[in-house]
Structure formats: C-alpha cells, structure tokens
C-alpha cells in the first residue's frame, strides 16, 4: 500500500482483499494517497453497527495494484457524519447521496472551496426523509403513498436554450430513469440524470437471509448480470465461511460468466447497429443471441443462467455431450461474428454514426473513474480477469480488449474483441474442464465476519460485500455495480453531440438502472 499509515489485514477468500479500520484523519489521508497513486474507488457503502459498539461504519473499497483495499471508518458523532471522498473521487458523489438516503449518515465537506451535493438520490418522495431503511432499529414501513416532489435540476439559461425532459418511462423496451437535457438547436449543452426509480430495497432485503439463500436475490440485482452477481455473492459467502469450492465448480462458473458476456455483447452489437439505422444488424445479432440463449436453456436449464451459481459451487453440471455442443456453437457463432464485423467495418453509414460520437477521452475517463468495458474503450486498461487472475483464469491467459478513441466506435470494437476472446475462452474451458464434484455445503461460521466478492462482469467490475453474524445469517450485504462510476460519464460523453445521437451513445454504454438503483 502506498503512502498510507494504515495496517491492512488480508481477508480470507478467492480474491486479494485487505481491510483496515481508520480514524477520520487516516480516512482522509488514505483517500488522498490513493487518489495520488491513481487507485480506483470501487465502492462506498455504510453499515449500522451500533449494536456491535462501533456506531455507524462507512467503508470505501479501492482497487490497488495488490488487490482490493477496504477502509472502514467507525463514526461516533451525532448526527453521524464522515469526511467526503468526492473531493478526491468525483465518482463518490452519488454513492455519498445514496448512503445518506439509506443510512442517514452524511458526507461532510473537507474543503471550504467545495460543497458536497446533499440532494437525495435514491429516495424520491415515496418514503419520509427521516426514514432510513438500513438502520437496524427501523421497522419496515408499509402502505406509504408516493407523492410528487420538486427536484432541483441544474438549470442552463441563455438565448434559445430549452429543456427536454425524458422519462422515467422511456420510449423503448428499457428500464426507467429520468434524463434532463438542456439544448440549443439540436446540440446538447448539458445532460443531468436522475435515477433511483427502480429502487427496490435490495440491501434491506438481504438482512436476515441465510448465507446459502442470498444468491437468488443477488442474481436479480441486474438481470443481464445474474451470473456475475451470483458469483460475487457466492465468493463473499465462501470468504465468510472459509469454504473451498471444488475445482470443477470454479471452471463451470467461468464458463457461465463468459457465456453471459457473449450473450450481452451479441445483444448490444445488434442494438447498436439498429440505433445507427442498420436494422440488418439487429436481425442478425438477435438471431445469434437467440441461438445462444436456447443452448443455455437446454444445457443449464435457464436461458439467462439465473440461479446456476450457488454458494459452495454450481447447481448445474454440463455433461460431455453438452460440452461438445457448446464448443461447436462457439465455432459456428465465431464465423458469423467475424463476417458481421467485416460488414459493420465496411459500412460507411454505420461508421459515420459510430465514429467520434460520444467521446470520453482517456484523461477524462481516468479523472472521473470510468471503468469496465466503457473504460477499456477509453484507455483504462483494467480487467479483473487479467489483473487478478484466479482459477481458472490464471491458466487461460485472458487477452485484454483495449482502445483509446473513447467513442461509440471504440465501445463497439471492444465488444467485438471481448466477444471473440470469450468464445476462445469457452472452448478452452471446455477442453480443460477438470472432473469432480461441482458443489459442497458451506461450513458453519464461528463469529461475526466480513467477506468480499469481486468479479469482472460483462459491464465491468462488480463487488458484493457481505457481513454475516455468528448464526450464519446475512447482517448486511452491499452490491455495487460499475454503472455507479459510468453513469456520470454518460453526461459528459453526450456533450456537444446532437440529441438524436443520444440513444446510440447511451446504448454504447448500456448501463444498468436496476443494478444501480438497487
């Protein structure tokens, strides 16, 4: 750890995760040191540990070169406050707002020059401002009536400037959220997002579940990333119980994760063609995606692979004939994808829409913390499968997809590269899948404990942090999606573009609403 006086202790578990408890001064100095060393802020969340004598605890997780560094800050002040991270890490702004909405712990400005955004984020007017669902002395409240409330969007004024409000219900088959465009002519001067519409209280629902049942809920944080979340949850539960998963189960998990990546990239590549006016692309790619999902259904029993990963292993075990089918499908789909890529690349109309649309420069991406697939298209060379390869990825030699253009074309190119790479990985996994058991039962735990799961989903790195009590129940489970980091960058990517290009730019990021709103 660079320039931090904190003593980090290594946690049990599949990924390298370290934890340290900080004082307020250390919390701030560590954030500064990590920001200077360009460590990424992965997540920020809070927990009510008043019953354990620690007061409220906020936790920040940073990605350092040697793994994930979790810094805990117990808070004893009343009203509870902590020094804001947003001065060093702009991506913390919305996480701080959400943390207050759910736990009632406020971020305090550490710099007289910079105020901290205190507007509500996940709480709209549907429940009272003094109701904090994650406080352990708060009863679940039913039969609240939703009201309308005023939300202070930032207003752009000037000659000919006007606003276009979009949503929460959007015009396509997509998730809900609100976009407020300030435009002049057709040009976007400013976009402000307002999310939180699909907040379902997931963090609260985990409270009191047994460790071995939480994967179902984690698998429904974001339907397109069900494998990644279920794996991250399982990884956290296995860290908490010090469970060693059978080798074959880890290989099958990687197989499922790569199949999820392929399914999403196939869907997105078609939709991106369509949004740029090439309906042919949607027809072709959605045909391939359907073939892919049908084989998922046949082999694994679920088209989207929900509930296939369970704590202790996997609930599905492909036999030899299934592996043959899977391998053959990879070969067939690869041929078609290469052909379609050539068609996309030579299509002048399509490339005209893709290139230079929605640019996020590598400098901006680094400063604001763009991560995952979109980050790799803007020069941010991070991929957990490459940076911290754990079995089976340590033997597969994952090739990082990378681009520095930062436009829609780059995000399309990264998708193509990752798709082809995942097809290779799946074939390799099929070749080398070890024999043996695919599931074991979770050992019981011997006290209050903490574990983390950290997985490179198709959208980027996602994290599940789990606190369990001695009886094997979940005390607190926090799921973090890379969309938290990437949504604010969409506001930048769309600047100076024309309004009709917004759907295309938005699709090129394809961020989750449900996984963000929780």
């Amino acid at each position: 750890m660079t320039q931090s006086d904190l003593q980090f202790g290594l946690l049990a578990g599949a990924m390298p995760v370290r934890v340290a408890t900080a004082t307020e001064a250390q919390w701030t100095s560590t954030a500064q040191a990590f920001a200077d060393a360009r460590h990424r802020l992965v997540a920020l969340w809070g927990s009510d540990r008043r019953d354990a004598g620690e007061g409220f605890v906020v936790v920040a997780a940073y990605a350092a070169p040697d793994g994930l560094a979790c810094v805990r800050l117990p808070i004893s002040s009343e009203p509870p406050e902590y020094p804001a991270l947003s001065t060093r890490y702009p991506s913390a702004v919305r996480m701080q707002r959400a943390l207050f909405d759910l736990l009632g712990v406020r971020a305090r400005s550490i710099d007289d020059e910079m105020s901290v955004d205190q507007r509500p984020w996940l709480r709209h007017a549907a429940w009272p401002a003094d109701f904090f669902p994650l406080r352990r002395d708060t009863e679940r409240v039913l039969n609240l009536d939703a009201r309308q409330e005023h939300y202070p969007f930032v207003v752009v004024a000037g000659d000919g400037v006007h606003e276009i409000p979009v949503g929460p219900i959007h015009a396509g088959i997509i998730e809900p959220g609100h976009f407020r465009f300030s435009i002049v002519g057709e040009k976007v001067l400013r976009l402000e997002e307002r999310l939180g519409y699909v907040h379902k209280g997931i963090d609260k629902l985990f409270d009191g579940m047994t460790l071995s049942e939480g994967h179902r809920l984690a698998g429904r944080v974001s339907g397109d990333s069900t494998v990644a979340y279920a794996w991250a949850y399982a990884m956290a539960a296995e860290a908490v119980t010090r469970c060693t998963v059978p080798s074959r189960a880890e290989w099958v998990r990687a197989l499922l994760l790569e199949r999820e990546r392929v399914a999403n990239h196939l869907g997105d590549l078609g939709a991106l063609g369509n949004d740029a006016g090439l309906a042919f692309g949607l027809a072709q790619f959605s045909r391939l995606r359907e073939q892919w999902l049908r084989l998922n259904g046949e082999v694994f029993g679920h088209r989207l692979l929900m509930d296939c990963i369970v704590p202790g292993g996997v609930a599905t075990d492909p036999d030899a004939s299934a592996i043959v089918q899977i391998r053959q499908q990879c070969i067939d789909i690869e041929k078609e994808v290469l052909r379609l890529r050539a068609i996309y690349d030579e299509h002048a109309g399509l490339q005209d829409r893709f290139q230079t649309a929605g640019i996020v420069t590598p400098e901006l991406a680094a400063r604001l913390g763009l991560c995952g697939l979109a980050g790799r298209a803007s020069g941010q060379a991070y991929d957990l499968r490459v940076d911290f390869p754990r079995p089976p990825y340590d033997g597969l030699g994952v090739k990082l997809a990378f681009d520095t253009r930062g436009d829609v074309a780059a995000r399309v190119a990264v998708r193509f590269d990752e798709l082809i790479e995942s097809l290779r990985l799946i074939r390799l996994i099929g070749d080398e899948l070890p024999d043996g058991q695919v599931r074991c039962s979770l050992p019981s735990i011997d006290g209050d404990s903490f574990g983390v799961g950290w997985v490179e989903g198709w959208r980027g790195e996602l994290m599940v942090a789990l606190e369990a009590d001695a009886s094997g129940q979940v005390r607190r489970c926090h799921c973090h999606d890379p969309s938290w980091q990437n949504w604010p960058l969409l506001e930048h990517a769309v600047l100076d573009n024309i309004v009709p290009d917004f759907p295309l730019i938005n699709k090129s990021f394809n961020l989750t609403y449900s996984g963000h709103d929780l």
Partner: protein
Amino acid sequence: MLMLMKQVLTKGICTEPPPKVTDAWHIDGAHMQDSILALLGRALTIRHIDAGSCNGCELEIHALNNPYYNLEGCGIKFVASPRHADMLLVTGPVARNMQIAVKRAYDATPDPKLVVAVGDCGCTGGIFGESYASCGRVANVIPVNVAIPGCPPPPLEILRGILSAVTSTHR
C-alpha cells in the same frame, strides 16, 4: 455491401413456422388474429412499462422481436407512448418511486385497454415483495387482466400471455 447482401440471402428467413394445429400455440394464434380484427382493427399495439424489474423480463420481451418469434409479423407492435397503446405490458414489482409514473401511464392509455403483468414480480411481487421501496405486484397499483408467471418467463410464455389477454377480452 456485397457481404451484407450475401449474408441476407444465405441466412434467409429463420422465423419458425407456425406450430401444427394440435399445438396450443397455433390455436392461440388463430384466436388472436380473429380477436384483433374483431376488437382492435388491424393490429395490437403494446406499451411496455418497466415498473421496477431487474431487467430480466425486458431481455425476454426484446427476444420477441428477434427473427425467430417475429412478433411484428403477427401484427403486434411496441409503441413509444401509452396514448398509442391498446395494451400495457408491465414488468417488475412496482417500485414506490415508479408508482406515480405507472398510474399516469395507465390513465393516459385510451379505453378499451388491457394490462398484462409479466414475470413472478409482476404477478406476486416476487422475491422483492412489499416493502418501504416496493408496492409488490402490479395489481396493487393498476387493474391487471393477465399475469404471466416465470423468472423471467421465456418469450413464448410472454407471447402466450399477450394472446390470452386478447382472447379473454374477446369472449
């Protein structure tokens, strides 16, 4: 462009042929065509609303438009406004933050209108249930004609639900 043309010509049409007469789907399909002509004129228009879904149901609704299911070939089309819609296809438990939007979309849909709730969450609230943040099933917020179980229901089940709604109205 040559490559594109070649791809179109060699892949042809993969829309699956209608099932045999003994197959329940075919019967539903027939009902639907009659019902649509009798009740709604030339086509059924659907406005989809995600009221709080995890996005799993959306993925399968999207699949209905792929060449295998070719929903538009049946005369069923997704539209951008509830004012243009005959049917609301609602997914998810209704998040409290979406309650007002869902009610308004329902009120904006002209009569006669149908509401189909999609997925376990739409049917019962599913894994999310009722809480400070969730109103539970769709029927807790707006009237529902048909509720399709499944997590998520596969495309054919969603199609069955859409057709069932139209058929029951016809009777």
